[in-house]
């Protein structure tokens, strides 16, 4: 049990919490980061089998923070994205949208396995002298006072700081304890995640196939590998997860198609329930939410972590701008600038991805005609296509400096 004084305390040392700690520390603030997981748990390959599509603005930010150089060897550039609609066993419908990186001059994003991002962030945090990292300790209590807050950890350690940030993920205990409510619903769908090896090279093409049961994404990884994010109803997902290897592979092949030759799973399977939720407020005096603690959206557009890292960029900039003016950055009027900046964007993306999922997870014929025509239209209009690509790349809205590749 010890007493720590810091400029910022962060609960949660995952991808959002660690990136935030780096951005703030590089701006000159002393940061303490606590996480309930031990280091060994964080680096365990079985802990998190997901991959993430890093938008190009996110990549610029990771370059600025010095994280990207550690990630690059394990990152697969996405040069094209093909979105289409298929029916089980029938192959793709004739209409599709093709996003080509040559139209905007940068890769559309990069696919990186979560565990590599975690490893790179841990290494960066440990070499940053302004970060005090406390793995294996959960945040257990937060007391907010007039001029500072005290965060008590599970081992009795007390961190005193003017601002405490919860980056604890979807079920943030500090958010609950602070009485911030969330609005949202469960999709009744689960995302099955598995890595596959395939015969022919993917050439950096990502496929987003809309099946009636839900989106099925094929995300290119380094080598002849891809990560599948395979959405099913909860009941169907439970059935598929319980299948022995041979029938599981058969189900997988039915959806995957033939375009990359023979395909087989090469990792264990993970399944995650899909939920949408948005916190009613992002800030209170001396307290702010970032990442999934503030919002969880449908993963079909691959924007969840990008959205969380946009929070990081906006929050770090708001806090550092205030600190450089000598202002008390834990004050709610300072923190509300961050809230106004981020809440609208998160809400918009939540609504768009929710709408897309509802539109496509449906086998009703007229609806299918509408969406096929819609796809054909988007595909034929280059400015519209570029707009979609820029949004997927994280370029719309007022960009925080980090997302432009500048220091916070």
């Amino acid at each position, binding site marked *: 049990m010890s007493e720590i004084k810091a400029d910022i305390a962060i609960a949660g040392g995952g991808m959002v919490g660690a990136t935030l700690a780096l951005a703030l520390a590089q*701006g*000159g*603030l002393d940061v303490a980061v606590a996480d309930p997981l031990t280091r060994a748990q964080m680096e365990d390959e079985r802990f998190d089998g997901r991959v993430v599509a890093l938008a190009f603005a996110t990549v610029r930010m990771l370059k600025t923070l010095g994280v990207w150089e550690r990630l690059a060897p394990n990152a697969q550039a996405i040069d094209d994205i093909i979105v289409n609609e298929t029916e089980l066993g029938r192959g793709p419908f004739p209409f599709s949208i093709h996003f080509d990186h040559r139209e905007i001059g940068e890769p559309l994003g990069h696919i990186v396995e979560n565990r590599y991002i975690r490893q790179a962030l841990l290494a960066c945090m440990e070499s940053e002298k302004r970060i005090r990292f406390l793995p294996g300790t959960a945040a257990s209590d937060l007391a907010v006072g*007039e*001029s500072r807050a005290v965060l008590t950890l599970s081992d009795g350690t007390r961190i005193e700081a003017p601002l405490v940030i919860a980056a604890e993920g979807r079920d943030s205990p500090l958010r609950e304890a602070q009485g911030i409510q969330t609005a949202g619903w469960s999709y009744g769908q689960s995302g099955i995640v598995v890595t596959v090896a395939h015969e022919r090279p993917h050439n950096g093409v990502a496929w987003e196939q809309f099946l009636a049961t839900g989106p099925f994404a094929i995300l290119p990884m380094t080598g002849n590998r891809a990560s599948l994010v395979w959405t099913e109803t909860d009941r169907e997902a439970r059935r598929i997860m319980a299948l022995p290897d041979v029938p599981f592979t058969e189900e997988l092949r039915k959806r995957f198609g033939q375009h990359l030759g023979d395909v087989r799973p090469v990792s264990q399977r993970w399944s995650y329930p899909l939920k949408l939720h948005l916190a009613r407020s992002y800030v209170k005096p001396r307290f702010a939410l970032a990442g999934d603690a503030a919002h969880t959206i449908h993963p079909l557009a691959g924007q969840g972590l990008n959205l969380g890292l946009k929070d990081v960029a906006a929050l770090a900039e708001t806090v550092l701008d*205030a*600190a*450089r*003016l*000598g*202002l*008390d950055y834990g*004050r*709610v*009027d300072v923190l509300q600038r961050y809230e106004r900046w981020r809440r609208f964007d998160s809400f918009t993306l939540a609504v768009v991805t929710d709408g897309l999922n509802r539109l496509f997870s449906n086998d009703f014929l007229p609806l299918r005609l509408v969406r096929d025509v819609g796809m054909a239209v988007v595909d034929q209009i280059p400015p519209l296509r570029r707009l979609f690509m820029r949004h997927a790349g994280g370029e719309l809205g007022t960009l925080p400096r980090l997302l432009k590749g500048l220091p916070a």
Partner: protein
Amino acid sequence: MTEPTSVDAVEVEKFSRLAAEWWDPKGKFWPLHAFNPVRLGFIRDFAAEHFGRDSQVLKPFEGLSLLDIGCGGGLLSEPMARMGFTVLGADPSEKNVKTASAHSADSGLPLTYRALTAEGLVDEGAKFDLVLNMEVVEHVADLGAFLQACTKLLKPGGIMLVATLNRTLKSLALAKVGAEYVLRWLPAGTHDWNKFVKPDELERLLEEAGLTVRRVQGVSFDPLRWDWRLSSDTDVNYMVVAEKLSP
């Protein structure tokens, strides 16, 4: 002198409550909090350039001293101390000094508050690198004498910042009638428009006191962004920076 502890406790409680009022972002001093970032940014950037400091680090002004005249609840003194200045907050009101002290009591900042006037400090022979006169001159009876006293408090090469309200029809409409009576940002009677000072009058008085005017900067409220920004319009709120050249 030893006071009974209970009396101290009552005093502390009273001034802590007043401090909470001064510092409440939604309380009656909210217009000052909304105004603070833009003027802090201006002071920081001007001072960083003048003293050759890097405005992007967190404590650019370590080793420099600052006097905040008419410090009120300490809304400027505290940020200035966080930016590294060794700060003396001075206010003729004992109540304000106790209030500001209560707020920064455990902060560990290089900051002291004293109940005295500029003239009182001159008698002590105190000298500072930077003197802030923010929203003070419009409340002063003999402005010329006041600015001469403030000039004596500057070290050679030091700078004085004066922020105040212009005496124009626009300021009568916006700062007096608009802010006090229509929007009710300020308590009615806060300002006497007849005491507002025109920039050329202020510049002349500063030069007469022996200073060299370096910058006249307007500050405007942007109703679309609902925020303050620096502007070339000095008709309502403006700031003047003047330097005491080395003899």
